[in-house]
């Protein structure tokens, strides 16, 4: 079955700490991968996406993610978090030729000032 797993449900970090959020997927065939962020009281926004090419993808606000095909992973990273990064982060996948996103359950990140 197609699925996305986010292993960390809640993460608490201090400002300037480094961040890595795990995402693993199960999907037969070629995939497109996404990270969305939802700030408190706001709508889901696209952080970054991978379709093909360089497996290291850079997104907005200093975030990046690396697609490791052999591990079926697409982990999100940021070298130094800020208080304003407090939000919920969702990993999502869709398959080549499809439009349905399959989302993970999300990771709530809290950054302490």
């Amino acid at each position, binding site marked *: 079955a197609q699925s996305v797993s986010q292993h960390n449900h809640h993460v608490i970090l201090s400002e300037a700490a480094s961040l890595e959020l795990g995402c693993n997927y199960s999907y037969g065939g070629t995939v497109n991968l996404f990270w969305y962020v939802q700030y408190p009281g706001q709508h889901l926004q696209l952080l970054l996406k991978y379709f093909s090419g360089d497996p290291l993808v850079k997104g907005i606000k200093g975030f990046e993610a690396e697609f490791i095909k052999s591990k079926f992973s697409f982990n999100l990273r940021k070298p130094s978090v800020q208080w304003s990064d407090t939000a919920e982060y969702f990993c999502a996948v869709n398959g080549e*030729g499809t439009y349905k996103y399959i989302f993970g359950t999300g990771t709530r990140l809290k950054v302490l000032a």
Partner: protein
Amino acid sequence: GAGVSQTPSNKVTEKGKYVELRCDPISGHTALYWYRQSLGQGPEFLIYFQGTGAADDSGLPNDRFFAVRPEGSVSTLKIQRTERGDSAVYLCASSLTGHVNTEAFFGQGTRLTVV
């Protein structure tokens, strides 16, 4: 408008009642999606429109759920005989085309509570 607009933002209804949730996509976007997000879960696909037609409604949980998009713009999600298990945030998204490489933009959602 600048983004995807959903109304109402909150809806409380009694079990057994009928509700309608509205989505106003970004102007010019031909593709429209409905997702449902239950507490502690990620969004789950419900239905996809390309223009006026429902290209894929495989995510609708049962026949109490129905959605329309009569003029290829605004969409309405309709839920009959609501049940407490229908309580969730209903998200609408739109994209310029239905091509998988186009970004989907999400609205803020309608929080439905069935009491």
